[in-house]
């Protein structure tokens, strides 16, 4: 049985990434959704709190961080849901490739399609809440490290819930303890920048955590998936 296209790890990863990006593109309406969601949540705050400029400025960094995080959480839920439903996940596990790698590609695609647009829009949201321009670089940098961290940690948890039918909210619950430190460091950086203090230290912590996670999370993800799917 001669193979024309042999199944190498590279082709498999490429196929995985291409498929997920293609699916995202097919439903490109959905691509804009986390962004719009974040915009609207941000807009709601002035309505709920009253148009007090100093107050809004004070909470701008924190609100944008929390909002971005929630928007990502919403999208995370859908990461494996449709794959489980239509049997694609089973097919994925039957492929002659390390599942951890394939899942890593899924996470990458997910980050590219949800977090990246959010990072791009974040300064605009922060501007709407009057965050000083000086704090913007800190905000963007913090998000650049915090969002992939959440994607990776989230993926491990999503993998754990793979065999179940009610991942959505459960996921939020499980992810919370893991995002608390991320939020603290990210918010710390933004707050420091806003007060004109040096803000690179918390970002460096985030970066270190990110590097550690990028190595460990796909492995943990594969282990979790194996536990969750083998009965």
């Amino acid at each position, binding site marked *: 049985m*001669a193979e024309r*296209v042999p199944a190498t790890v590279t082709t498999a990863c490429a196929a995985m990434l291409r498929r997920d990006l293609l699916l995202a593109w097919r439903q490109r309406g959905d691509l804009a959704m986390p962004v719009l969601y974040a915009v609207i949540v941000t807009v709601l705050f002035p309505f709920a709190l009253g148009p007090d400029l100093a107050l809004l400025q004070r909470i701008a960094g924190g609100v944008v961080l929390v909002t971005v995080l929630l928007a990502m959480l919403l999208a995370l839920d859908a990461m494996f849901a449709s794959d489980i439903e239509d049997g694609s996940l*089973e097919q994925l596990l039957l492929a002659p490739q390390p599942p951890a790698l394939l899942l890593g590609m899924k996470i990458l695609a997910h980050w590219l399609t949800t977090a990246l647009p959010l990072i791009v829009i974040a300064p605009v949201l922060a501007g709407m809440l009057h965050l000083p321009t000086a704090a913007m670089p800190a905000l963007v940098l913090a998000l650049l490290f915090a969002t992939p961290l959440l994607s990776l940690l989230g993926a491990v948890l999503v993998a754990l819930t793979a065999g179940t039918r009610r991942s959505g909210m459960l996921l939020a619950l499980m992810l919370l303890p893991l995002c608390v430190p991320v939020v603290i460091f990210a918010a710390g950086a933004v707050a420091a920048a806003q007060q004109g203090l040096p803000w690179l230290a918390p970002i460096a912590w985030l970066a270190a955590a990110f590097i550690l996670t990028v190595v460990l999370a796909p492995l943990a993800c594969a282990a979790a998936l194996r536990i969750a799917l083998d009965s």
Partner: protein
Amino acid sequence: MEAMTAVCATPLLQARQLTFHRGDEPVFAPLDFVLHTGELLLIEGDNGSGKTTLLRVLAGLLHVSAGTLHWRGAPWQRDAVAGDLVFLGHQLGQKLDLSPRENLAFATGLHGQRAEPSITDALMRVGLSGYEDEPVRRLSAGQKKRAALARLPLLPATLWLLDEPYANLDRHGIALVDRLLESHLTGGGAALVSSHSTVNFHGGEPQRIRLHG
């Protein structure tokens, strides 16, 4: 064709006293069978007798509870089997928002592709010419099934596990599955098929297992 089936010494798949338990109860009675390349094994049984469960166990999606399962002489192991097996279940594993062509391209990216039919050819063989680039969502039930069947001739797998491949298909579709099976077995493949209707298999009498729930 007949000659081929007899040549191979180590069987492709061999089960001894194989069972699967849900909770504490066995889903089907302990099974023994031997499958060589070039052979077809039909799994028969009434609704709820455990056909789907058996096929999922053989695919490695569920864990053997008791008994042994050997693949080419060695104990069943995911890494040895993974690329060499296609499983087609009640859920077809197709993305509804992608076209049949895109779904197949993904499958071949993951599993590799045989030299012979191109994706377009495979879709033509299953009678989906003209629907290659339609989202699967817009296909009828039988057309969806055909799109899933197109994976079979494309992927370089020896063992096919087909769960009710005839369901939702019209006459031509049924003949198509028979033809696919026949050329696969002639080419040195093997297949386990569960079905309620009869298989028109021209290459000799297939083996049969009957399950009793």
